């Protein structure tokens, strides 16, 4: 029975636990064995917490035996992107500066998952402080794509995405500031949900850009993502930006009938299919849209003329927020410091700051700190930062108007499939442009979902679905209806056959 338990979805595993077909300990062991077998090749995990996972699984089984199971996620193994503070396990943000850092408190997301009984398998890889689109900026090594180990898994949530493709657990929690859930999900052929800003508490989530960061879910199916979203969402007194908007019963809102998308208007905007999008990817996405039509949806042509400016606004506002957020890594309060490791390297307080940061922060983090300092400096502030805020407002209004005419938008996730490791590391602007189709969601304060829709050159392609503010149920409904009649999300990565 315990054979291949790691291949199950959350929904299947949850039903199996309820029916008593297997225990959480058996399920957890199967996931740990899969990690042991394949993560040497993938490097999805920064840290595997086998003992913690076994302990949480034992507790889950005891609760269930006593008739006190906590809900659908009780006993389900998952991982956290390594940017969530947890008292049970160190948190590094894949940075040298937080090597061995032990958080003194728990992120709200982790607390909620503990209260739901889920089993933490460990912390997964990301670009340092989530800055990047390939996981190549991790101090702990690149994460490899289970579909082709020579290619990136995407990023910044490359570890969580690869962990789903390699079946290292049932779901993963990641962050998406400019596409960091949807892009790696697309690259790895898994499902990635980026809810609206404020839907999930960010308390204890190490920040990159505070007006963009949002926690979401990577999973094997849309239905699983809906189940997890329901558990992690909601207002939190510890995060003033979390929304009091009521949490919806996302899973039970999904219909499973003949024409599930009858009455649903799916918008298609030419601006998402512009120059630079691989025509083979475009073709698959357009075929995906035909599937939605066959499921009952009405396809509506729309236009978002300012979409093309989203990436420029994003790469002003985000570095500005980065330069401010990264100030906390000062060699004084916590984390690695020359004061601890090499006190003779500096003579003054300024030396402790600047030498610690120079030594322990990586290239992309430094680049964004400097870029942010530039766009915020006097003389440039209005030209860059304020202007980008105004453009952000224009784009958000354009989305709001569009979502009066349609329920969801459909588009590609990325211009092309996963690129080769090393291909873009020396060209930051080329790397930034990878985000061109995902950042509009973050700039426009809406929600987005990535679902697998086919393959180009043996690599997965993602279909992106977007919905208005706090309308996650719309993209979940369309995504679930899509997966009801397609098999792309069930295809095993070649690594699994080894």
């Amino acid at each position, binding site marked *: 029975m315990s054979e291949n338990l790691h291949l199950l979805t959350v929904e299947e595993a949850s039903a199996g636990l309820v029916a008593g077909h297997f225990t959480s300990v058996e399920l957890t062991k199967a996931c740990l064995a899969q990690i042991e077998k394949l993560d040497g090749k993938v490097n999805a995990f920064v840290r595997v917490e086998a003992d913690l996972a076994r302990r949480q699984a034992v507790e889950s089984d005891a609760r269930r035996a006593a008739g006190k199971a906590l809900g659908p996620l009780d006993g389900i193994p998952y991982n956290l992107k390594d940017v969530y503070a947890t008292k049970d396990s160190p948190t590094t943000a894949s940075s040298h500066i937080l090597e061995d*850092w*032990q958080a*003194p*408190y*728990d992120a709200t997301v982790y607390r909620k998952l503990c209260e739901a009984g889920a089993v933490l398998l460990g912390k997964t890889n990301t670009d340092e402080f989530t800055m990047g689109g390939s996981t190549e900026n991790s101090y702990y090594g690149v994460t490899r794509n289970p579909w082709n180990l020579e290619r990136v898994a995407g990023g910044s949530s490359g570890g969580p995405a690869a962990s789903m493709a390699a079946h290292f657990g049932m779901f993963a929690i990641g962050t998406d500031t400019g596409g960091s859930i949807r892009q790696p999900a697309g690259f790895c052929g898994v499902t990635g949900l980026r809810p609206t800003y*404020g839907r999930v508490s960010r308390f204890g989530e190490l920040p990159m850009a505070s*007006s963009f960061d949002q926690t979401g879910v990577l999973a094997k199916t849309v239905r699983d993502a809906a189940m997890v979203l329901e558990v992690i969402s909601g207002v939190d*007194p*510890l995060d003033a*930006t979390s*929304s*009091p908007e009521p949490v919806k019963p996302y899973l039970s809102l999904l219909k499973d009938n003949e024409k599930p998308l009858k009455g649903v208007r799916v918008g298609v905007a030419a601006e998402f299919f512009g120059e630079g999008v691989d025509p083979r990817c475009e073709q698959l996405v357009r075929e995906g849209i035909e599937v939605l039509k066959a499921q009952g949806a009405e396809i509506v042509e729309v236009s978002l003329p300012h979409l093309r*400016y989203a990436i*420029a*606004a994003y*790469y*002003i506002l985000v570095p500005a927020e980065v*330069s401010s957020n990264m*100030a906390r890594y*000062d*060699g*004084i*309060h*916590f984390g690695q410091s020359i*004061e*601890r490791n090499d006190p003779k390297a*500096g*003579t*003054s*307080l*300024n*030396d*402790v700051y*600047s*030498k610690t*940061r*120079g*030594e322990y922060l990586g290239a992309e983090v*430094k*680049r964004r*700190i*400097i*870029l942010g*300092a*530039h766009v915020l*400096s006097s003389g440039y502030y209005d*030209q*860059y930062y*304020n*202007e980008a*805020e*105004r*453009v*952000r*407002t*224009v784009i*958000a209004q354009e989305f709001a108007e569009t979502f009066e005419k349609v329920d969801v938008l459909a588009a590609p996730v990325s211009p092309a499939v996963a690129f080769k490791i090393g291909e873009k590391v020396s060209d*930051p*602007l080329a790397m930034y442009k990878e985000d061109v189709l995902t950042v509009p969601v973050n700039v426009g*304060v809406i929600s987005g979902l990535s679902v697998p829709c086919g393959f180009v050159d043996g690599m997965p392609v993602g279909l992106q679905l977007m919905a208005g503010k706090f309308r996650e149920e719309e993209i979940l409904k369309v995504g679930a209806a899509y997966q009801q009649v397609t098999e792309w999300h069930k295809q095993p990565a070649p690594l699994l056959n080894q």
Partner: protein
Amino acid sequence: MSELTSDHISHLAHLSRLELSSEEQERFASQLTGIVGYVEQLSEVDTSKVKQPLGVTGMTNVLAADVVRGEDDPRTVARDSLLAGAPAREGAFIEVRAVLGEEVTGA
């Protein structure tokens, strides 16, 4: 298109308290010149109608209840566990190098 010089990068690095090697300064000068040149396309957008920039949450004045959390509240963080992360401390204090006079002696 504005060009960022290595000297300007050096100035920004000082303001950011971030030590960069001269190689990093030159590399960033060239890379950031490209990035800034790209983002300058924003000047094409007519933003004259935007009265007030977007507030991303749409909420105002989110206030926390003015109550002290007890030590047994799971959200309470003990002082010692917070201080434990500091590289240098003396008792309940974080120890830092002399601040006053630094601009004179440390320059």
